[in-house]
């Protein structure tokens, strides 16, 4: 593939060795790079039954196939491993500048196995790789460690760093891996795997050129996309009214939308634009997934989380590598009374929702502080928020006592207690130690399993499956369950996949009631959604590029230009299906049984909510998941990929390479 290096770096921390491995071109043809390359490599090389926190687990840092080609919005790096949180496939991805740094060292991916006896970091540049002592960095938070590593290694090019904070060092199963001052690849417990290997950081300082078959063609596509994004506009003053829009959205059928329009919102406010909308529309879970907007005074709460308030304290906006959109920002939080920090990244919607409305917390400034605490510690805010909400509900219902919570008054809306609990979880101190491994394990120890929101061990993203039954399919059927970044109905409505893929159904007007049935069309929709998502992950493209739709973000044209190929959409969607199938084969190989993964009853509407836009909704999730598996060519009862599907996708031959 002419936009990849054709090589990966393999590091064994037990022996302290690093070797370069060549990857056959057929592998890139079949699964691209990024998550696809990671899936192929890990399926082949992690032995069945390997301990996720043991030496046989492999932690992979992968760049996307389009990274460094001049393609816009293609700078995502993906971490892959066997997840200690679920016991199956694990991955997480992040923006920033780390993905091109992998390629600039001459690799498409770095795969790390073994366990070091003492803390180390991996350093790579044009000359090769070295495993270096990290004793002086161990114990620092992710921001401190990154700054020090850059300062200590800045003889030539400024290095790029992926690093764990205290949560990863403490092998918290809900910890992630950070870069760029606390931006985090958060999910699947990838930070715990890095911590278990005693690997503090990966520091990359290469400067090799990144290949591309037709840079002029890529440049032309990017010029067109950049011009459109730069001409984006939004109605002034919309921010304060987004909560009102949510009321309309929650009560009307949803139309397919021109995906380009999502870009306006992200450019102006970033993902916090969704918070007020989510509170009032039914998209965002409230009070640990138990309430409608009315029960938490949702409209007022939506004003508490007005994104204009965030923009007022925004010091600067920033862009990820090769991104003209720029949804990120740095906020001045010196005015937050309990914060020892002066600034933080603009929080993502997920963090705002998880520590705000999910915990009925009206004080947004406390969430800004929590955002910085979690970013520095490298702890997943989605998992941590769901876990704190569980603890509050248990405390309110007498399942947890004040003695058990180390004296914390865990009541709805008590943000002081939220902050104190998070600090304990990061430090693995007292009650916090039991919550640092997520809600599943906490509820197994203390009870309150009916309040523990997790899917297959992983806490769900902040989008309510009762509002979007299609997402409910993916929360369960996705090989890394509980994720919100794949399969939303609104996303499908924006992407127009039917215009590039012969079998993808057209997006239709959908309502919660229509989306409850297990139809073949629904299953084909969810399959198309998954395949395109895998394609974008293989390319290294951003979720928000995906949401722009195929007419604005021309992923197929980009891939053909960068790789020197001439494939159509159907071919690329088959690559997506192949990646997804290999990830599911990984699960089966490691004894993760897809059929045992269920949505919590509350997320299925059992019993249904009594008020609000989700009133009376009960999902037929199990039937829909079975249908989804069936159209994927997987066994509809077990979720195992069928032998004929594996053969048809050429995976058997691929695994012999």
């Amino acid at each position, binding site marked *: 593939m002419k936009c990849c290096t054709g090589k990966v770096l393999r590091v064994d921390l037990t022996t302290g060795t690093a070797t370069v491995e060549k990857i056959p071109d057929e592998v890139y043809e079949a699964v691209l790079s990024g998550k696809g390359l990671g899936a192929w490599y890990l399926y082949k090389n992690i032995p069945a039954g390997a301990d996720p926190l043991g030496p046989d687990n492999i932690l992979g840092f992968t760049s996307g196939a389009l990274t460094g080609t001049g393609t816009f919005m293609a700078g995502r790096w993906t971490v892959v491993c066997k997840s200690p949180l679920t016991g199956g496939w694990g991955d997480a991805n992040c923006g920033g500048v780390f993905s091109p740094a992998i390629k600039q060292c001459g690799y498409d991916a770095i795969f790390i196995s073994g366990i070091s006896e003492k803390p180390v970091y991996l350093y790579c540049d044009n000359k090769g790789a070295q495993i270096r002592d990290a004793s002086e960095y161990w114990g620092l938070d992710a921001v401190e460690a990154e700054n020090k590593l850059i300062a200590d290694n800045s003889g030539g090019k400024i290095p790029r760093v992926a690093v764990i904070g205290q949560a990863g060092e403490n092998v918290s199963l809900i910890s992630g891996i950070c870069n760029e001052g606390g931006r985090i690849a958060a999910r699947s417990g990838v930070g715990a795997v890095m911590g278990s290997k005693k690997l503090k950081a990966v520091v990359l300082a290469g400067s090799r050129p990144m290949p591309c078959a037709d840079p002029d063609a890529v440049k032309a596509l990017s010029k067109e996309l950049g011009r459109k994004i730069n001409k984006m506009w939004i*109605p002034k003053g919309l921010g304060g009214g987004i909560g009102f829009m949510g009321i309309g959205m929650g009560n009307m059928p949803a139309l397919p939308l*021109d995906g380009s329009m999502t870009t306006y919102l992200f450019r102006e406010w970033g993902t916090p634009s969704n918070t007020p909308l989510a509170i009032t529309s039914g998209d965002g879970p409230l009070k640990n997934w138990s309430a409608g907007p009315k029960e938490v005074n949702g409209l007022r709460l939506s004003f508490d989380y007005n994104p204009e308030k965030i923009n007022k304290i925004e010091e600067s906006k920033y862009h990820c590598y090769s991104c003209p959109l720029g949804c990120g920002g740095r906020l001045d939080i010196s005015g937050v009374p309990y914060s020892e920090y002066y600034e933080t990244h603009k929080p993502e919607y997920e963090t705002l929702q998880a520590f705000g409305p999910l915990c009925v917390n009206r004080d947004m400034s406390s969430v800004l502080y929590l955002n910085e605490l979690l970013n520095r510690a490298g702890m997943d805010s989605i998992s941590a928020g769901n876990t704190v909400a569980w603890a509050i509900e248990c405390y309110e219902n007498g399942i947890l006592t004040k003695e058990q919570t180390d004296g914390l008054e865990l009541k709805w809306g008590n943000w002081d207690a939220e902050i104190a609990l998070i600090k304990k979880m990061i430090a693995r101190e007292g009650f916090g130690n039991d919550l640092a491994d997520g809600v599943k394990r906490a509820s197994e120890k203390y009870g309150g399993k009916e309040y523990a929101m997790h899917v297959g061990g992983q806490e769900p993203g902040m989008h309510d499956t009762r509002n979007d039954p299609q997402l409910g399919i993916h929360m369960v059927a996705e090989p890394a369950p509980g994720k919100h970044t794949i399969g939303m109905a609104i996303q499908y409505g924006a992407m127009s996949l039917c215009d590039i893929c012969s079998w993808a159904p057209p997006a239709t007007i959908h309502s919660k009631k229509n989306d409850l049935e297990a139809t073949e069309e629904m299953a084909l929709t969810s399959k198309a959604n998954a395949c395109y998502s895998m394609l974008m992950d293989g390319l290294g493209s951003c979720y928000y590029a995906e949401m722009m739709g195929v007419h604005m973000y021309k992923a197929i044209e980009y891939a053909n230009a960068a790789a020197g190929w001439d494939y159509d959409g159907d071919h690329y969607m088959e690559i997506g299906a192949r990646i997804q199938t290999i990830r599911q084969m990984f699960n089966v190989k490691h004894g993760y049984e897809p059929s045992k993964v269920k949505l919590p009853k509350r997320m299925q509407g059992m019993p249904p909510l009594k008020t609000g836009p989700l009133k009376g909704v009960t999902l037929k999730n199990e039937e829909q998941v079975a249908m989804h598996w069936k159209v994927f060519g997987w066994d509809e009862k077990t979720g195992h990929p069928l032998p004929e599907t594996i053969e048809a996708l050429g995976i058997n031959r691929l695994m012999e390479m």
Partner: protein
Amino acid sequence: MRVKVFPPHGCDRSALDAKSWMEIPEGSTVGDVLKILKCSPLKAKLLLVSVNGERAKFKHVLHDGDVVGFFSLVTGG
């Protein structure tokens, strides 16, 4: 010529095919599309319009393959 249309709520979608494309005469404008969709003038005033991801006015002349999006401040989701 054919254009892809993301119509607003409450419009007549009969001119659209299953994939939301519609045939229109050469030289048609965004306003002409709204007329085919039988969108009332009052409702049209509340709409934001994009053509191929760029802001457009009702008098914008369309071309074959254009993607026309309408965004209403009162919408479903």
